[in-house]
């Protein structure tokens, strides 16, 4: 029971790391380029969730100035992650545009087929 409650208390952190690993697995093992990009996004989301979970304070209120002296949650990680999300969007856009170009020039978005076509080209040279 003790272990279970500890896991439940830290569920956000564990979830963040789990998403990171799932995403990493997707990027590394899938040969579809779009799925690779999705994996990257899942990885990013995992890190963002982890970061935001660090800032949480048990029983805290959102960091908006109110009367009295309530316990605020830590706003810094959330603010940092806003930057992280912007970065992640731009990376996604850039890599998707690359996939478009790859599809236009090779006619495939599968990494294995791509490698085959590329080796054929280099033998031809």
């Amino acid at each position: 029971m003790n272990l279970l409650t500890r896991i439940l208390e830290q569920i956000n952190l564990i979830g963040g790391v789990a998403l990171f690993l799932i995403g990493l697995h997707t990027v590394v093992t899938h040969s579809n380029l779009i799925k690779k990009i999705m994996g990257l996004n899942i990885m990013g989301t995992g890190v963002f969730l982890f970061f935001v979970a660090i800032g949480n304070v048990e029983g805290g209120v959102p960091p908006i100035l109110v009367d009295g002296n309530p316990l605020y949650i830590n706003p810094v990680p959330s603010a940092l992650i806003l930057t992280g999300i912007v970065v992640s969007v731009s990376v996604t856009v850039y890599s998707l545009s690359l996939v478009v170009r790859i599809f236009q020039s090779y006619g495939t978005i599968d990494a294995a087929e791509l490698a085959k076509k590329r080796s054929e080209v280099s033998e031809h040279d």
Partner: protein
Amino acid sequence: MIENLPILVVLAMVVFAVTIPFWKKLSFRFTLILGGIVLVSALVANVAIWNHVQANGEILFRFGGHLPFLGIEFKIDAFASMFSLFVATLSLLIYLYSSGDKTEGIEQPEFFRFYVLFFLMLFSMYGILFSNDIFNTYVFIEILSLTSCAIVSIKRKKEAYAAAFRYVMLNEIGSLSFLLGIAFLYMSTGRLNIDLLRDALHTGTIQANVWMAVAFFTAGLGLKAAVFPFHIWLPDAYASAPTTSSAMLSSIVSKMYLVILIKVYAKVFGFDLLKGSALSTLLLVLASLGMILGSVYALAQKDLKRMLGYSSVSQIGYVLLGIAFFSEAGLRSAFFHMISHGLTKAALFLAVGIVIYLKQSRSVKGFEGTGFQMPIAMSVFAVAAFSMIGIPLTSGFIAKWNLGIAAETASQFGFLVLIVVSSFLNAMYFLPILFTAFFKDPADGPQRAKPEKIPAPMLVSIGALAVMILLLGIFPDWLMTMIDVVLAGF
């Protein structure tokens, strides 16, 4: 006034980058000259900053006047200043080269985009060097990795797209690992400022989280710097990029990630924390594998730019070896090797670029007789190749000598053997090229073996690089005193 120079340098880069489309409307030539002025003034500013830092100590700049635990801080110490000087010098030379070259493989309408990326890249590198805030460093790293991927894919060639895709995927895994490392560090200390992090880590007990952070930083930065088992993206990316991009990537950008690695190890965690750990052994093993296997792979390459890429992998192994000793002698050799390799690899890539520019061929065979057709380019190539092998009177020799001293002070004599073996391997792939270039007639008959015309800026640029390599090899003392000033600040 001088206190504000670092900010002005960073701002000048980003402002010029985003205004290039406007300048270009006036005239492309005008834009080129303006960019040259920006880079020259950045170099002058960096010299002034170095002198100021040496005389008056570090420059601190707090954005918005917030206290360090809340705000973002720029801190320019001798370490940052030395490397910003290095970046300013090399970027000026590469820029000069690019203005003469028709920036190989890039189509006319893309020229200005290339320069936008070039200056954004410089902006992020100065940011990385000056920033004293670890999350801010992450943001600059992301700008750097996006621009460096884009500068590969700017060439409208199929291979460039595929290489850039692989580059962006692995780069992004590296960045996210770095970010997760920051998260673990923030979790155990609640700080992002590097000085405050250091204080927090050195008081109180070290939690398991800190070791997780060390692991993620090492993996992330190792991926981005192409440390041996993570080098798979490097040869493709360097080989398919335009010449000037490959020179930028190999000589400056890959060094930036190593600079961050040193910053994290030495300034955040501190060497005394890491010295006894398994990390040192791990890095030593990776470094030695990289030194040997990088060269072995290079031997097998027919495409010259791929070969230079693999040789970069082995050279990064040398730098990592210096870092992995976690000692002052090790850092000294790592710094020297980074600067020496930056100059050497830039010279090699740019010299090969001249051959590609004239011959449209990049296989080793295409070098037949080039020694007579383009004597200056091939002499520079020869000097740089000698420096790579580590022949005395070149900077590479001093770099390897320092590395040997570092291995000896750590009483790890096995690494001396490794350095010698790796140098032999280097010789095995560079000397045949020189032989082909100088002692074989070109394929289309000896009568064609007369000097050909090369744009002057390209020759000036690679000539300056060769002179610097030789100067560093003959008079290494001035750089050594600079490095000693830097090491005193650690």
